[in-house]
């Protein structure tokens, strides 16, 4: 290899960079958060795959089948709750633009309310199922059903906890870069959980009814 083929023609280009490098902290954190959500999406992918495998007659071990444990009308109210929560949260992030702290906090409080409604409905559903003897340790099918739905429920609880943490931060720090980054990433998280719930609703509840 000819060492001189690498020779630069003309004046020496700059070797060092002065001034700000354009690393936007919000963009960097948001990319990182998208990547985290990709891993979360894969967790749900694995759980949906497990549900698909275990949603067979032989996996019910003579216990309840899907149409006996899913209640699509009741779950429809859960769907409405989760979508209302996302709407409220999205309105809260709209208020960031006008630096309206009160608007942001009001939106988050409404989002928390609907989130808690969702969790409450799910809890009531689980209590009913336990009452008729449909427990996770009854059969492979019910294991998959409960773990899938409960994993989503845990994510919802985590989102609510996150909102509860952000409320005092908004009061204390105002809408600074760190808080806004968290608010925007939480919006991503919250909308993602709603999308997962839509998949759960279609794949578990609606499909379970028609089987």
């Amino acid at each position, binding site marked *: *290899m000819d*060492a*001189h083929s*690498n*020779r*630069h023609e003309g004046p*020496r*280009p*700059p*070797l*060092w*960079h*002065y*001034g700000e*490098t354009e*690393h936007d902290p919000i*963009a*960097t*954190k948001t*990319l*990182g958060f998208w*990547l*985290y959500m*990709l*891993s*979360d999406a*894969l*967790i749900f*992918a*694995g*759980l949906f*795959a*497990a549900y698909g*495998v*275990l949603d067979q007659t*032989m*996996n*019910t*071990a003579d*216990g309840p089948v899907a149409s006996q444990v899913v209640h699509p009308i009741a779950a429809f109210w859960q769907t409405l709750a989760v979508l209302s929560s996302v709407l409220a949260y999205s309105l809260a992030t709209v208020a960031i633009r006008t630096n309206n702290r009160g608007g942001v906090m009001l939106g988050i409080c409404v989002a928390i309310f609907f989130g808690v409604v969702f969790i409450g409905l799910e809890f009531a559903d689980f209590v009913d199922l336990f009452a008729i003897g449909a*427990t*996770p*340790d*009854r*059969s*492979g*099918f019910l*294991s*998959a059903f*409960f*773990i899938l739905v409960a994993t989503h429920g845990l994510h919802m609880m985590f989102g609510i*906890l996150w909102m509860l*943490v952000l409320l*005092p*931060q908004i009061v*204390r720090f105002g809408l600074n870069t*760190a808080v806004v980054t*968290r608010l925007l990433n939480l919006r991503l998280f919250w909308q993602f959980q709603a999308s997962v719930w839509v998949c759960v609703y279609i794949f578990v509840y609606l499909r379970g009814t028609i089987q």
Partner: protein
Amino acid sequence: MLVHLQGAWSPLFGRLTLSSIPYSNPIIIFAFAFTAIAGVAVVAPVLYYRKVGYIFREWLCSVDHKKIGVMYIILGLVMMFRGFVDGMMIRTQQVTADGPNSPGFLEAQHGYLPPSHFDQIYSSHGTLMILFAVTPILTGLGNVIVPLQIGARDMAFPRMNAISLWLTVMGAMLVMASLFIGDFSDAGWVGLTPLTELPYSPSVGVDYWMWAIQISSIGTTLNAINIITTIVGMRAPGMRWDRLPIFTWTTLSTNIIGLTAFPILGVALALLGADRYLGTHFYTAGMGGNLMLYTDLFWIWGHPEVYFLVLPAFGILSEVIPTFSEKPLFGYITMVAATFAIAGISWSVWLHHFFTMGAGPWVNTFFSVATMLVGIPTGVKVFNWLFTMYRGRITYTTPMLWSVGALLLLLVGGLTGVMLANPAIDYTVHNSVFVIAHFHCMVLLIAFTIFAGIIYWFPKVFGFKLDEHNGKRFFWTFCLGTTTVFTAMFALGFEGETRRLDYLYDPQWMPMLVIEEFGIALYCLSVYYFFKMIYVSLRDREKNRCGADPWGTARTLEWLTHSPVPFYNFAVTPQVNELDELAWRRDNGWADMAPETFEPIHMPKNSMVPIIIGIFAFGFGFGMVWRIWWMAGFSLFAIIALVIISSFTPDPGYTITAEEMRKLEARTDPMGIVADSHAPLPMAEERIV
């Protein structure tokens, strides 16, 4: 909901009783004594030289990507040593337990290890080598080198980087704890169901295995997020995608695999955990469980994991071979394309790990063809390296020797791999040690490149070269050991020896087993030369001090800054103009040009939070293993509380002024990562704790 267990359980100590400690087993007593002596040998000098504060402040609380990388590599090397001892014990057991007349020692009928103990040893050998030796070392190399190669000041999320490290360390600590408290899994490192279910594995061994992997793989996932974000978002000006060094490309692709594969492992193990703790029926033999679900989920992670390991190894080869051939890498674009082709195909080959487990002929055919396809991009890479060496000015330094050795192993391992990709052949040799020899060739190729990488980049991090004389002895003994052990093992596979045998029934295997044991002796010699290499290098470090580019022919950006790398990496962010920036600057006579004016730079502060999170993660894992619910619950609560509290105390970092930078750059004494604090590192204001 909670599974009712047989045996004692108390609210305070869970399943833990005094009889859980295997103090009557002489092998474990010896292991404990050895570990204790090694621990004292590490801790005593720290105490003697009064370096406790230094170690704590500057290392354990560090958020510096280089220090974290070095700690990853140290963890990996220690675990590799333990995994090697396990391997040595396996080989010794087999050579002493061949044939009905073979003697029995200790409590064993044949050999010196009773079956359950032997099973634990091969399970921990696999778990340690793959997840706690090779994975941390490659993660560590990526941590050290990638930010330097792309001209970044640090990782995108320095504190999360430290959390990843401590989670990995605590996973390894759980495996170590299993040696002395309770037992380890005896169900193989893959943990096939339903063997790992409670009725068949009622002890805590499987729980140790499960939680150790679970905790460390969370660390790996976080690290993958960090590295991808760093490469995408933190590149120096001018570091376009077509100028990215190959090692950075392979680290990027490997972490994309890591990010997408490790969550599946998390699911597979979490469902197993649900079976063992909540009594669900995902993988049970009855009640509607499906044990193939586990096999599929595990290998959907397991196969990408193989490429997760091998791709950075290919990256190291792509850095070392051009440097010591004094030529640019042949076929940069095809190398990148081949890397991503391998990463992509890695997702559609998992079933070849269980061709014989009842999939139909069409399914087997699909996965067979997909597996053979991997050979094409890998072949492209091999030819690229060969063409790089062709008519190059090759110097056989130690890293180059390891690289050439790795190419040889890649050939043997790859060709036997293509053989095994054929289901007809696989039906004949499956579960035999032929398969074991094949994948050991592949994993040892990774180990070879690891040693190439460590020796190659060591002077960059520490400012002096490792001793070449002992390094070459280390290479030759290790290389001969590898060929001796695994050539014999291929032969034994054809002679019909199946894997994981604590007793071998055929005395005719004896000659080959003795050859294998001889190879193990060569390995032991190589361990001696490794330590001698480290010792001699440390002793003669003043003689072997080196400048920015110790090899003289390096090509990429990391060699532009000082050796050892100062804590701020580059005094001024470099402007990248070409692929192989350093080679370009050298050819134009600009390699030694240093920046003349400086700017203030901003650095993150050290933090205690990551290691405390790590300690609580250990507490959580240990509590779950022994079902000490208060400990697990409190640890989990503490982790969440710590994360919330630290989100209320933002890290303002600290700024080094231009004047301080000028002084730091004017220093002549080495000021690398082993030096004491150069500037006031204000970590004291941690308000937590």
